[in-house]
């Protein structure tokens, strides 16, 4: 049985919040942005001991004016993968497996350039330097997290910055951002596991999409190859313009594809079935622990005609493998950057925050912490 408590909870959370209304789903009109209580002003709203305590909240990144929204997802049990008769289904989406995921918060939208570049371009450090502001204790911890080399070009490719999803980062960069954000906010953030991602994308549904089986409706929920427009090189759009799914998440279908923690494995569900069988028929919080630096699951489909822009790639169960070789093709340097994909303009990410953060031991065992490859370390900035 799909779990729908998260959906109900969300509705309760919005009771009394007057501005959660879908204005329209026209091409250019924006969905009204919900106003979540700000965790910066009232830290309690982001605290919870049980799934029932979890509330949606907005978090301002300390020392900046940029904020992001987190939506509570109670967790539960669901059938991961697609049934054999689902239209557009690929082999790697089966067999379906019963999976249980623990409660977590998830980003209402994909991470935007505005958020990402604070870390990517040291904007917090720059601001403190230029305005002669003191560093907080948390700043000091966050400053110790590795920052990437600067991109040699404009990574938006002239296609929109403010409010647009950050793209073209390697999985390492996405994970390092999460590590930094955790240090900066005091809450543990990371990429979603593939199981968490699909659970969230389905929003309690068992259909091909979170709005049913009819791809004709996709345009109300997703930017995909047919509605993304062709006027720019990068046809991503501002986050949160399309209708949300039942959990209140925007752009799970489409806009930019999103990284998961898992290494991609076409046969993963076969293995997962065995794991479930040995555990009373349920796989609990599965993760295919990465053994490679860059081969990851990317989910949700995107705007591009070259990889995963078609409606079939936007189904909740559709899986896609990252293609580092392809996505770095125009990086003119060797060694190629460990932080940037010059041609990964359709790939971004969203963050999750598990209700129960992992222990140091779990982080190690599951390889949750990003590691800069040895060969790239000499390129990290000097501190003179």
């Amino acid at each position, binding site marked *: 049985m799909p779990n729908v408590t998260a959906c109900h909870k969300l509705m309760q959370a919005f009771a009394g919040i007057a501005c959660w209304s879908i204005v329209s789903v026209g091409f250019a009109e924006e969905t009204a942005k919900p106003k979540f209580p700000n965790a910066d002003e009232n830290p309690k709203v982001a605290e919870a001991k049980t799934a029932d305590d979890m509330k949606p909240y907005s978090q301002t990144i300390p020392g900046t004016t940029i904020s992001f929204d987190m939506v509570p997802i109670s967790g539960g049990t669901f059938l991961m993968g697609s049934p054999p008769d689902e239209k557009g289904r690929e082999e790697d989406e089966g067999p379906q497996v019963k999976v249980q995921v623990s409660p977590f918060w998830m980003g209402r939208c994909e991470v935007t350039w505005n958020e990402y*570049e604070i870390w990517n*371009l*040291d*904007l917090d450090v*720059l601001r403190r330097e*230029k305005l002669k502001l003191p560093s907080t204790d948390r700043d000091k911890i966050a400053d110790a997290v590795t920052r990437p*080399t*600067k*991109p*040699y*070009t*404009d990574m*938006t*490719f*002239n296609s929109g*910055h403010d409010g647009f999803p950050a793209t073209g980062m390697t999985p390492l960069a996405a994970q390092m951002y999460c590590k930094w954000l955790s240090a900066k906010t005091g809450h543990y953030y990371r990429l979603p596991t593939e199981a968490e991602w699909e659970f969230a994308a389905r929003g309690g549904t068992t259909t091909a999409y979170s709005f049913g089986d009819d791809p004709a409706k996709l345009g109300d929920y997703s930017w995909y190859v047919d509605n993304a427009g*062709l*006027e*720019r*090189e990068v046809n991503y759009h501002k986050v949160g313009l399309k209708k949300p799914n039942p959990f209140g998440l925007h752009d799970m279908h489409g806009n930019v594809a999103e990284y998961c923690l898992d290494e991609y494995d076409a046969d993963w569900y076969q293995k997962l079935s065995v794991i479930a069988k040995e555990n009373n028929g349920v796989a609990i919080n599965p993760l295919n622990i990465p053994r490679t630096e860059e081969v990851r699951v990317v989910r949700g489909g995107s705007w591009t005609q*070259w*990889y995963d822009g078609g409606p079939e790639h936007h189904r909740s169960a559709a899986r896609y493998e990252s293609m580092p070789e*392809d996505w770095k*093709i*125009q*990086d*003119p*340097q*060797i*060694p190629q950057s460990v932080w940037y994909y010059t*041609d990964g303009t359709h790939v971004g990410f969203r963050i999750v925050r598990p209700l129960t953060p992992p222990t140091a031991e779990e982080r190690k065992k599951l390889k949750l912490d990003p590691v800069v490859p040895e*060969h790239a370390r000499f*390129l990290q*900035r*000097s*501190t*003179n």
Partner: protein
Amino acid sequence: MTEKTNRREFLSKSTAAAVGAGVVSQIVLPRGAYAANGDETIRIGLVGCGGRGTGAASQALSTKGDVQLVAVADAFGDQMNNTLNRLSKQHKDRVNVDEDHKFVGFDAYKQLIDLDEIDLVILATPPGFRPVHFEYAIEKGKHVFFEKPVAVDAKGVRKVLKAVEESKKKNLKVGVGLQRHHQPSYLETVKALQDGAIGDILALRVYWNSGGVWEPRRSRDQVKTEMEYQMRNWYYYNWLCGDHITEQHIHNLDVGCWVKGAYPIRAYGMGGREVRDAARYGNIFDHFAVEYEFADGTRMYSQCRHIRNCWNSVSEHAQGTKGTSNIGRSYTTQDGNTWTYKKKQRREDPYQIEHDDLFAAIRNDTSYNEGEYGAHSTMTSILGRMAVYSGKPVDWDKALNEGADAYPWAEENLTWDTTPPNVPNKNGEYDIPVPGVTDVFEA
């Protein structure tokens, strides 16, 4: 300097076609027509083992036919083996560099170019050295792929132009790393514009506004001498880099001139060092805004910026009598006709195509020389920089013939103990150009 470049003559010759568009031709192998050794192997040497040099070598080794990397040279030896290991991994049978073909130091380029068996050299050191390296390679009869910019000052441009003339006489093929000339999206748009898609070009806008490049790689306590300090952190020193208008923004200026089919006669500009002002950032600016004037009175408006969290764009735009174009992407006419470039295949890599084209020309012995526009596009960027540093209008002819920018370039006999042209004061700060004070014609 007396060798004058006759700009008017150049402009009249400079039809659209002359500003070099890459042509991919069928590869037919005229046996031994190109190789020093009378076989079909093209042997290459790499001068400058940084990230770009290594990348260029990899692309050269990925071209059709037998190509061998047989020698490498770098001022520093520390990255050389990494470079060779990476290239060997990617191109198993194409990297054959003996111990005595690894050259280290300021004159390493010479030892490499002196090798008889080398057919082509890749020049990818910091640009300050480029004119000297290029001149020597041509003198020794080598084909050349050299990275942009091809010089950092007018004196260097003059040297390159002279060597280009020499290379033509010797039938040497010269490729320059302005890869937009080999990028299908640019080739298609530029052709459409030259065919009149948006009418006559009235104005151009070109940008490289970004967050900057790599941070200084070494601190003072990690190096032995000032020379080593500047070489390690070369981007931040004008005599090595030419400032970012020359080192990066050249790409966009080059596209503007390509579309215009001409080079400017004059530049006016302003700029400075507003945010990236710490001593470790040497003596380069962090923003330039330049207006270029063409002989017909039209203008090219240029901006380049290395300041984080500002409006960023790396692009070129044309305004015509009948419409507008985002060059390399699309154009729109006033009667509502829109054309957008559509990729033909998933992977389009102009950095590879520029080598495919150069090597095909070597193998087929077809005419192939990008040196002249490489030099003139470099000069365009230098002209803008001179206008900004001085705060005054600067004429192309005067700049090209008399401009010295007060940088002695990387001439011979440098050592790690040589004093660079700019040295820091006791706070580690360098002299920064001051508009209204700096004289860009003072030798």
